[in-house]
């Protein structure tokens, strides 16, 4: 590979550039990179010291994690961008969130056959905690939200839909536009919704309501109860309270995990 910057012509050009920069008082990029290298070493040392004293706290204290993340955001640094980052290597922040990501994916996959790929943040939280066992570190909903944000990079349709003061976590690439979201929010109160309710609350025509509900049915996010008294009810399994729905059996879970 031809290396730039080597050879008499290149040297002369560099000298000229250096002179020009010194004139204008700006610093050469190469010099800045060298400077950055030094600063990085210093930073790494300080972070190591910090880590040796406070690493445990990050693992154990979810409030501290929130503050830490906010601090990083204001600087413009993403401590979860890479497992190879200093933050991850020294403070162990990375492993905590990346492992959480794995657990989130697994829970969503196990329940997809039932809720179509939509689950409340509460239920996700509950199941992740259960899966982690009694002696694992505490996990807050803020932790889950951050882990999910990172999962988006892998393009599998991970997203969060605001519903009823909390969120629905979507783990499939089903296209959900504003109409679908609004119907989900409407269904949040009772776990189901009817065409009449949509027409009354949102003032939509019958066709628009039907179109949205059909889409939810097709995507497996809604179930149709056509035997309900009155008119058909569209139920959203994602919104079922856990007390009303039975748990996934191990056989079912095995079937569903790829």
């Amino acid at each position, binding site marked *: 590979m031809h290396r730039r910057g080597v050879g008499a012509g290149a040297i002369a050009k560099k000298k000229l550039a250096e002179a020009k920069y010194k004139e204008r008082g700006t610093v050469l990029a190469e010099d800045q990179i060298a400077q950055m290298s030094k600063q990085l070493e210093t930073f790494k040392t300080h972070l190591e010291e910090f880590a040796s*004293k406070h690493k445990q706290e990050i693992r154990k204290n979810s409030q501290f994690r929130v503050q830490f993340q906010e601090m990083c955001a204001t600087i413009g640094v993403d401590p979860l*961008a890479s497992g*190879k980052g200093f933050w991850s*290597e020294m403070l162990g922040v990375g492993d905590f969130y990346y492992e959480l990501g*794995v657990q989130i*994916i697994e829970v969503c996959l196990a329940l997809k056959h039932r809720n179509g790929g939509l689950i409340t943040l509460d239920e996700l939280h509950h199941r992740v905690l259960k899966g982690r066992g009694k002696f694992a570190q505490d996990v807050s909903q803020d932790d889950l939200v951050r882990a999910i944000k*990172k999962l988006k990079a892998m393009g599998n349709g991970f997203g969060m839909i605001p519903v009823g003061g909390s969120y629905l976590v979507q783990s499939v690439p089903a296209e959900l536009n504003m109409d679908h979201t609004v119907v989900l929010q409407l269904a949040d109160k009772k776990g189901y919704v009817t065409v009449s309710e949509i027409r009354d609350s949102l003032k939509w025509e019958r066709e628009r309501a039907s179109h949205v509900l059909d889409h939810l049915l*097709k995507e497996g996010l809604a179930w*149709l109860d056509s035997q309900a008294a009155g008119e058909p009810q569209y139920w959203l399994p994602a919104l079922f309270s856990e007390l009303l729905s039975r748990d996934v059996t191990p056989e079912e879970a095995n079937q569903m995990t*790829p």
Partner: protein
Amino acid sequence: MDRFVWTNGLLEMNETLVIQQRGVRLYDGEEKAKLDVGVVLLSTHRLLWRDQKNHECCICIPLSQIIFFEEQAAGIGKSAKIVIHLHPAPENKEPGPYQHSKYSFIELSFKEHGQIEFYRRLTEEMTQKRWENTPVSQPIPTGPKAERTRAVGIVGIERKLEEKRKETDKNISEAKEMVELSKSIANKIKDKQGDITEDETIRFKSYLLSMGIANPVTRETHGSGTQYHIQLAKQLGDMLQAPLEERGGMMALTEVYCLVNRARGMELLSPEDLVNACKMFESLKLPLRLRVFDSGVMVVQLQSHSEEEMIASALDNVSDKGSLTAEEFAKLLGLSVLLAKERLLLAEKMGHLCRDDSVEGLRFYPNLF
């Protein structure tokens, strides 16, 4: 420094002067206070400070506000100091030189020495607490008596918190500097100012990676990859061969993420690490490819499983059974439903299949049109 209040400097009845020392500068936390050098006075009740040049400028703080104090030795170019940690200011505090302060401690810097004696006398007064026995005529705001017993335990905690805050602040400001520096470098690279070698660019990118700073510089050959990602890509190339074969040549990236991280146990990959590594498959001539479907689903697939093969197999299976849904196709091939669906969609896109979309599900038929 927001605990101090203005005062006329006159001592009250029952208040006695213990010691005074000139040449003292005050610090708000670690920063120099907006005051000049002055005289610090210790009485039985308060700590006072008066500007040496302007005697009208005089401030004080009750000794009961002090939680804890310690000496700080002199250094090169630095005078010896006494660091004093304070209780929060009471609600009804009189006005003083500072409205707010982010610090809960101050420092006395002894430019003309005298710190040893001052420290000794301060220790005495804080031990004896003579202000409690001889209340003065003018009410001096004091913390409740209960705070005194709490102070011992709080001292340790407050100190640790201060330490942590100081260290965190230090880390933050260092990190901020580097973010600024990296932006400047990135701009220069983009504008092609100066002669930056390929090696230097790669080094720069690895610095960005270490700091978790978003990388604005991309190259056609390596994308956003660094040495780390190149190595990772090669590891994945080895590790994923068998699992891919087992799963019909294709795995969703989320599956890969779980598989790889479960195997590693520690030093896990971030989602972005995985994506960046997979992006390098092609340029490294590895037998794997990262592929993004129209739906946004990302998969890793074996090079050997070409598109034509997949479409042909989809068509065969559908023709065989007359029609198939994604679930049925998935069961047939041992694929996940997600990927089965993507293959059927692909075959449809190429015109080999057509769909029957109803509320009962999405079913695919051979395209006879």
